[in-house]
Every structure is written in structure tokens, then in C-alpha cells.
């Protein structure tokens, strides 16, 4: 009889695992956003490309440097900070001065993610934290939208390369976004323009079609919780639908509400950030409804045209509470809420 002289490895069951990993999921989210990025560059030209690349590189580098400063291995390999960078870039006006892009990126990762403890511990979506700070610090720059320039690949808006801390000069026409047009002038844009994104707005907010395709890809691969965007969009549609039934002159209809501004991008790629959204299905749906209601409330009655960013940030803030209230009902037991 031969003798098996082997050292056996002991580990705890289960001895097999599913193939997916955080890095795979995050990488696929990046993939799903690439068409949106490509289209943004197509519509807004070099300026958008520079904003997106700068935003992404800034975020990735910030995380890398922060990890190194703290003597920890870098965490950029999990792709989550790449998502933050791209998303952050997609929310910015394409003519934003690059130094402001860099400042916001450092804040997004440094404050929005790293200060909270990094991946898994951040309460708020880091990309939105970065954007929210910029919105407060540079309100004019953040709400100036160029019309798609004619020679968009041959020239840059002079604002793009503005020197830090100077007041950038915006050349061309500072066009209004469909949302501000509607809010301040009462003009609602054509839904098909909105849907295809041939209209001014933030870099990546404009093409609903590509955003939906990206979302559908992730949902099909079970890498995104589709209930969240579904709840948000249905809520916005129903709420704005009811309002426009009451007074169609004062309130825009559902199709305009759904496809304008950052709603699609926010609903599909930001509100679904797993870390900041509730863990149960019921919780996710409540969270989506909350965001949807807030979006309409802020857009209709708030002081500014766009409400998606704040709606999601508030949703993020409420998530821990939702997770606390909505625990799954344990098999074979009457429902019991945790004491904490």
C-alpha cells in the first residue's frame, strides 16, 4: 500500500465559493458607464474628455496617496474609486475649470470616502460629496453650461484651463439646461432630445438611453439592485404625473421630469451605490420612493432647478435608519425589531 504523504489544508466550510468578487462587480460598473462617457465626449468634445480624465485620475491618485500615507496597501485595485472618479466627472459641467475638477476630486475621495473609513464605511456617495462641496463653493461655475460648441474637438472653452483661484471667463453662450429653462422660463424641452442627450447639461447626464442600457446590463448580471432605480423613476413619474394633472401649466409632466437633468444618472448609477443604500429589498424600495419624492419636491418648490444630488444625499443619510427598521423577518419567528 502506498503511503499518501500529504499535508492537508484545513479550512472551514463552505469549501467552494461563487466566482464574483467586489472587484469584478465594480469593474463591470465601470464598463457600464463607459458608453455614457464616450457619448459625453462626442457631444461636448475635448473639454468633456479632459474633465472626465482629470476627475478619474484625481480620485484614483487621491485614494492611492492616502493609503500610502497611512502605510496601508493601496485599495485602488477594487475599482471602487474609479467609479467615484467617473461618476464625479459625469456630474460636472463640461467647461468647468480643471483646477476646480481636481479640488472637488480630492474632496470627494478624501472627505467623502477616506475620512469615513474607506470602501464599505462611507455613508454618502463620495462623488456627490465632491460635487456638493463644489456647488456650495463655486455656484456660478457649477451652473454655467456651454451649448455644445461647434468646433468641439478643435478648441477648448477658455474656462477649462483657467488658472486656479481666478474667476474664469466663460466664452461662448452660457446656455441654460432644460431644467433651468423650464423652471425659470417655463419652457419644457422635447422628450426625444432629452432621451438622446442632444441638449446641454452636465457631462454625463444627458443621454438617458445609454444610461438605461448600462443599468440594464448591470441588473441582468445581478450586479445592481434594479429595485432602487425602478422605485425612484416610478415615484417621480407618478408624483409629477399627479401634479401635472392638477395644473399642467405650472408643473412639467412625467416624461420631462424623468429624462431631464441628473435623474437618470443619479437613479441608475448613484442611488444604487451598494454601500449607501439599504440592504433589504423592502428597504431599497422605500429608499427609492423617498428619493423620488424629494427629487420632485426640490425641483418644483426648491430654489434651484436640480434636486437629484440632494435627494440622493438625504437618501444616503437615512439608509442606516431604514436598515435598522427593516430587518428581514426571521424564518419561523414572529417579527421582532432589533433594540438598537
Amino acid at each position, binding site marked *: 500500500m502506498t503511503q499518501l504523504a500529504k499535508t492537508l*489544508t484545513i479550512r472551514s466550510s463552505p*469549501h467552494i465559493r461563487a466566482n464574483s*468578487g*467586489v472587484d469584478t462587480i465594480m469593474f463591470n460598473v465601470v464598463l457600464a458607464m463607459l458608453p455614457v462617457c464616450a457619448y459625453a465626449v462626442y457631444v461636448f468634445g475635448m473639454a468633456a474628455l479632459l474633465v472626465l480624465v482629470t476627475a478619474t485620475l484625481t480620485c484614483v491618485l487621491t485614494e492611492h496617496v492616502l493609503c500610502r500615507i497611512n502605510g496601508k496597501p493601496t485599495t485602488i485595485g477594487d475599482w471602487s474609486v474609479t467609479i467615484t472618479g467617473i461618476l464625479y466627472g459625469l456630474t460636472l459641467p463640461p467647461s468647468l475649470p480643471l483646477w476646480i475638477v481636481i479640488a472637488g476630486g480630492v474632496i470627494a475621495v478624501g472627505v467623502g470616502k477616506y475620512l469615513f473609513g474607506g*470602501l464599505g464605511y462611507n455613508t454618502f456617495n463620495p462623488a456627490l460629496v465632491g460635487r456638493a462641496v463644489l456647488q456650495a463653493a463655486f455656484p456660478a461655475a457649477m451652473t454655467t453650461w456651454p451649448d455644445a460648441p461647434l468646433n468641439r474637438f478643435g478648441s477648448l472653452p477658455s474656462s477649462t484651463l483657467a488658472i486656479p483661484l481666478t474667476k474664469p471667463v466663460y466664452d461662448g453662450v452660457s446656455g441654460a439646461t432644460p431644467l433651468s429653462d423650464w423652471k425659470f422660463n417655463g419652457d419644457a424641452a422635447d422628450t426625444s432630445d432629452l432621451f438622446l442627450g442632444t441638449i446641454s447639461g452636465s457631462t454625463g447626464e444627458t443621454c438617458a438611453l445609454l444610461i438605461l442600457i448600462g443599468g440594464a446590463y448591470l441588473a441582468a448580471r445581478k450586479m445592481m439592485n434594479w429595485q432602487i432605480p425602478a422605485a425612484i423613476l416610478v415615484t417621480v413619474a407618478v408624483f409629477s404625473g399627479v401634479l401635472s394633472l392638477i395644473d399642467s401649466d405650472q408643473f412639467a409632466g412625467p416624461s420631462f421630469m424623468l429624462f431631464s437633468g441628473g435623474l437618470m444618472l443619479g437613479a441608475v448609477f448613484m442611488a444604487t451605490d*451598494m454601500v449607501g443604500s439599504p*440592504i*433589504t429589498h423592502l428597504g431599497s424600495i422605500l429608499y427609492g420612493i423617498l428619493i423620488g419624492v424629494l427629487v420632485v419636491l426640490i425641483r418644483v418648490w426648491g430654489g434651484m432647478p436640480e434636486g437629484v444630488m440632494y435627494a440622493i444625499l438625504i437618501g444616503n443619510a437615512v439608509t442606516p435608519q431604514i436598515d435598522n427598521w427593516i430587518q428581514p423577518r426571521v*424564518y419561523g419567528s414572529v417579527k421582532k425589531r432589533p*433594540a438598537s
Partner: protein
Amino acid sequence: MIDAVKHLFGVKTFSHGIHPPDSKDGTRDLPIRQFAFAPLLIVPFSQHIGKPAIPVVGEGAEVTRGQMLAKPDGFMSVAIHAPATGVISRIGLTPAINGKMTPGFFLKPYEASTQEVMEGAVVDPETATPEEILTAIQNAGVVGLGGAGFPTHAKLKVPEGRSIDTLILNGAECEPYLTTDHRVMLEHAEDVMRGIPYLLRATRAERVIIAVESNKRDAAESLRAAIPPGQPITVEVLPVKYPQGAEKMLTSALVGREIPSGGLPLDVGVICTNIGTTAEIGHLLPRGMGLYERVITVGGPAVKKKGNYRIPIGTPLRFILDVVGVEDDITTVVMGGPMMGAAASSLDISITKGSTGVIAFTERETGRVNNQTEYPCIKCGACVDACPIFLNPSSLGLLAEKGRYDEMVDDFHLRDCFECGCCTFVCPSHIPLVQKFRVAKAAVRKAAQVAK
């Protein structure tokens, strides 16, 4: 939610759970074959949950295959029988799967023996009382062959004043790689049918439901064909899903009753028994024999001659692997299935009545699992969606990290976790959740003991 819809359309299943690759192709078509006798068989006194049996033969005794070596010590204990004709060379300590040393018989089979089996008093299911049947099962040394190893007669005993209506026979065999129940149902459907009258008589159940997963339709057909006319027996084919074979899941899927937390199927009028156990009862009791061998799947990527073998109890792992041949880079040998089975720490441990499989892995598979980077919990909810008990493994994991074990028990139902491993299987952050829960449970148990 999707499960609820399935229920509406009459598909019987439970909520949540996972779909690991079933990996049964290697052995599902291989008929059961008798395994060789090892030169030394090591038979532990205790092969089940409950009290170890009391030896009735001493060192140096010559024993016949099937002869009782140890008798039950009280109700929660079963007899042990000789797996071969030979001599008890020694009674001493032997390693168990959990790494502890337990006493056992060291039996040297006689090489020239015909290995005929000793038969004893026959029990007739038509005339015996329930108590007589339970005692016969206990003396035959039958425990749950599905892996848990709970004494079968204890499980079948319906307490005074209680009654059950349904007997569920578990042929789901949801663990990947394992095909023993599959082969038994296919090849020994008559044994199953012979065993059922004993169980019906002992439990006074009204009907029998046999649960088979849809990847074993041939087994379901074989059983259906074997049902004697007029018997209250149905065979249900369930969708493939892990952990379908867990009692709670089976009961939910088949009769739609939820077993109360901390309770038994008995509390909702159900008793679940493994199909292999039933077949064994149908084989042993009409002959008055004791359990001395069992069917085991020897498989996994590291095994060369995979198969379903009838292996004598007490056969050391080393001997099995030597006979079937293994790849050079074998790294892990799992006793049982890969989802809930335990990795063997030594090749000297032997096959017991609860061993369902010997699954060996090579560096390739174990390396893939061991080298996965662990990320922080990203609250993706995959574990919540997978847990068949509807626990919140994410919250439990975070509490475990902080050592807040009491909270895990009081607020998050840690005790209901039956360590199926679904949460750990799906977690994209590769957090060893179920390991953490085991540690937490052990700590809580210890604290309770100290408090006493």
C-alpha cells in the same frame, strides 16, 4: 418575491438559497460498488450525536461481520456493529473529524473470511408495536445517514400527546458532488418501499412525501415505479437549490409550514428522514441485521477513480484514497459535501455512519478560494438574499468583528443560523461569515457554561 410567485404557480420550493454548480457529473452515473476491506478498520464507539455506545466485546475477541460490538447507552445512543469478520486487536483512541481523540475498536479483518453477514431477530412492520420498531432501529445502529448523524429512532419517536400527519423522506441531496442518495433511490427503490411501512407504523403518519431534486428525475421515476399500490406515498420533484435538504426548507417547500424558531418539524406535524436511512431500514430490519457499511461518494477533482462505493464503517481515509488514487497536488479532503462538510485534518480518521462523501480537492480549487482577497462589507445584500432563514448575515458579520456576541443572539437571531454557508458562498467581499458565526456561537455557549 420571485419564490412567492413560483409558489403561486405550484412550483414547490423555499425562499432564498443559492445555486452552486452541482458538480455531480463525475459520479451520478456510476453504480454502487462494494469497496475493499482495509487491513485495519477503526470503529469509534460514538458515530452520532448523543451518548457513545457501551462495548460488549473486549480486546482479542473474534467477531463476525454484522455482530454487535457495542450496545446503546440510553435513549440517545445506538448500537455499533462489526464491519468485518476478524479480530479486535486493540481498543484505543482514534482521531475524529473534529480533531478530538475518541475511543474505538481496532479490527483486523480475516483475509480468508467469506465475510458473510450475521443475521438476527426479524421485526415485522405489520405486527410490531411502534416501540418495538424504534428499539429495533436503535439496536440496528441506524442514525441519520444524511450527514447529521442523529439517532433515527429518537427522531421517529412522537412524544406522548403529539401527532404528526406527514413523513418527509429527504432525497434532495442538494450538496454538490454527492450522489449516494441518487444511486440508492435508483438502484434500491424497493428497499425504500420496504422501509416506509416501518416508519409509518412507528410514527403513525398518514402520508409520505419523497422529495427529489429535478437533477435526479431518473431516481424519482424509479421510486414512483416502486410504490406499492394503495400506499399513501407521493414523489415530489423540486427545483435544484441549496440547502433544499435542510428540514426547515423541505417542510416549507413541501407542506408550506414554517417550523418555529428553535423548534422541530414535529411542531408542525412533520418528521423528516433521509432517504438513504429509509432504504437502510428497509434492508436491515427484515433481516435482523445491524448497520456495518454505508454508501459513500468518493469524488472531487483530486480523485482518479471516482465512484459511489459501499464502504465498511471504520475504513480509514488513507486507505480509501490509496485505493481510488489521487492527484499529486491534492490539498484538502472534505468529509461530506463542500458546502457543510468538514475538512479532514488527518488521513487516519475513519468513515463513520454519518459520512456521506469523501471529496478531495487539488491546489487549483482550494487555491482559488484561499487566495481570494477579503474586502470590507459593501452592504450589497447578497447574503441577505441568500440566507434561507432570513437572517442578516451582513449585520451579524459586523457585530462578530466587534465581538458583540450577545447582540448577535438577542437581536439578530444567531441561534437560528444552521451554518449552511449560503452567505459565505455568495459574499463578493469574501468575508468568512459562517466561520465568524461558528466562533460567536462557541463563545456564547462557553459564556453560558461559565455562568452556570
